[in-house]
């Protein structure tokens, strides 16, 4: 299928791990992805021989580390096809990125009576920051609903985009249903009414190419740890002209130009939004992860995953009393399902003991569960290092689980 899966799997040391003496079948990539050896080695090497604080130092180590940090920024810029490295802010993660925009954009542009539009399938990280903003400013949260397949009801989008709408915050792909949203269409419609759009790409970037210039989104966010990079790092892309106008989010070292008690001026982009000592090891590790992805090939990954998704859906469909939640035509390789009369927690416990790591619960998308009137689902989320054989193990595991529990 274009990918040398055996080679790829050997790049990720954890995948040859055993749990309870069974081979690990890691299907919890929606929560976090595993790291290739090259990322792990880079982090070790940085700490063993180059660690130093960046930007203000003129000594050798600092110089080297600064160079690598800024090179990582350039790698991210190229990955997203952004115009300028000034548009790439390193944050603590997707949640940190969204909170940055909710605060800074909110301070500048949102007042009482204004509206923020999100969707019914957002992750809590793309709901709660906007709720907090709305509460602070007296604004209103509006919601684009989805249909029984888990696809946005775009027919009412025009209605929802009102004169008071200031920003639309929408996931590129749903972490609980797997839906890929038609973000380009939403962005076009919003822009036609001069409304800004933030795209939460936390579940999209690891599955294929993303081009912020083509999308023309105003903000795009994702987490390093979900795209094979280290924890504690993430990205906020923002259009330069917009970022220029926003007030900073956090105050601290590196984000200032001149500080006095009477008057403080801020640094230029991207530093204005990077307060304090940045997680430079995380950012550099992320850069290496993106380079690794490039070396595998993003198009190849996308087509391999498409094939694997088809296989998975076929396998799951053949299991009686298994119901899938989220059947969008355009999807990532993330599958939520329920086994009739079986509690997800029980299923999770049993699958775990077979070495199968899936996630159970609400997946931080409680409104999606409420929509379907359920407490949670079992979720298998795959990336390009997963295989058909693993799906077979999952299907067999589900069968056994159902036997045990009925």
């Amino acid at each position, binding site marked *: 299928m274009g990918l040398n899966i055996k080679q790829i799997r050997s790049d990720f040391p954890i995948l040859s791990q055993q749990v*309870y003496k069974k081979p690990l079948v890691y299907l919890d990539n929606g929560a976090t992805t595993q790291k290739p050896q090259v990322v792990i080695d880079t982090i070790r090497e940085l700490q063993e021989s180059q660690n130093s604080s960046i930007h203000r130092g003129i000594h050798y180590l600092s110089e080297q580390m600064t160079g690598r940090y800024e090179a990582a920024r350039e790698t991210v810029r190229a990955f997203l096809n952004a115009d300028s490295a000034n548009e790439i802010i390193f944050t603590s993660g997707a949640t940190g990125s969204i909170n940055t925009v909710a605060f800074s954009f909110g301070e500048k542009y949102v007042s009482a009576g204004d509206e923020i539009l999100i969707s019914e399938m957002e992750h809590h990280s793309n709901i709660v920051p906007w709720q907090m903003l709305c509460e602070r400013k007296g604004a209103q949260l509006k919601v684009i609903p989805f249909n029984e397949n888990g696809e946005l009801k775009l027919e009412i989008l025009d209605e929802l985009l009102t004169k008071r709408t200031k920003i639309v915050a929408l996931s590129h792909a749903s972490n609980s249903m797997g839906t890929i949203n038609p973000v380009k269409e939403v962005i076009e419609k919003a822009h036609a009414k001069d409304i800004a759009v933030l795209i939460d790409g936390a579940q999209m970037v690891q599955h294929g190419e993303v081009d912020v210039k083509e999308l023309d989104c105003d903000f795009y966010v994702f987490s390093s740890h979900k795209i094979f990079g280290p924890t504690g790092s993430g990205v906020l892309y923002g259009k330069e002209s917009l970022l220029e106008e926003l007030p900073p989010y956090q105050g601290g070292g590196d984000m200032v130009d001149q500080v006095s008690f009477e008057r403080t001026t801020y640094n230029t982009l991207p530093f204005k939004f990077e307060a304090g000592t940045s997680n430079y090891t995380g950012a550099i590790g992320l850069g290496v992860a993106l380079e690794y992805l490039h070396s595998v090939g993003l198009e190849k990954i996308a087509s391999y995953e498409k094939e694997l998704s088809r296989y998975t859906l076929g396998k799951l469909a053949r299991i009686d009393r298994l119901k899938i939640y989220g059947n969008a035509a355009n999807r990532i390789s993330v599958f939520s399902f329920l086994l009739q009369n079986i*509690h*997800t*927690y*029980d299923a999770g*416990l*049993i699958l775990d*003991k*077979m070495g199968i790591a899936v996630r*159970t*619960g609400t997946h931080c998308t409680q409104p999606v569960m409420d929509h379907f009137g359920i407490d*949670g689902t079992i979720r298998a989320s795959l990336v390009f290092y997963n295989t058909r054989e693993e799906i077979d193990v999952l299907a067999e595991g589900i069968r*056994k689980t159902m036997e*045990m*529990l009925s």
Partner: protein
Amino acid sequence: MTEYNKAQQDIVDEFSVFEDWLDRYNYLIELGNDLPGIDPKYRSNEYLINGCQSKVWLHADLVDGRLIFNADSDAIIVKGIVALLVKLMNERTPSEILENELTFIDGIGLRQNLSPTRSNGLLAMVKKMRLYAMAYQAKENQNKES
């Protein structure tokens, strides 16, 4: 060894025959199925211990100086563990429950299920069982004094 701890040891011994995790779970599922569900009047929010991933309901009465527990869960394996806890603590005096430590959960390798981050309600349920014991003990002492 107290009688209470003897009972704990018995549970551990019973489990020791199962080498495989799935067998242990099968046993817990059996125990869960055998435990009569809680009286519907207690299967309400008032008696609910919300564990985010699974729910537990608990109620206790004091009859002749001994605690009678009535408990349930919506997840069957959790209910199996609930059954073990009830089996151990039922018809005990408050002081028996308060003076002895809970060790069998560790002994049968289920400690993870009582970790604070498990969100299955079990840890909160154990705490609640002890709280019931404390409350009834306090009440008894009061009655004695007056």
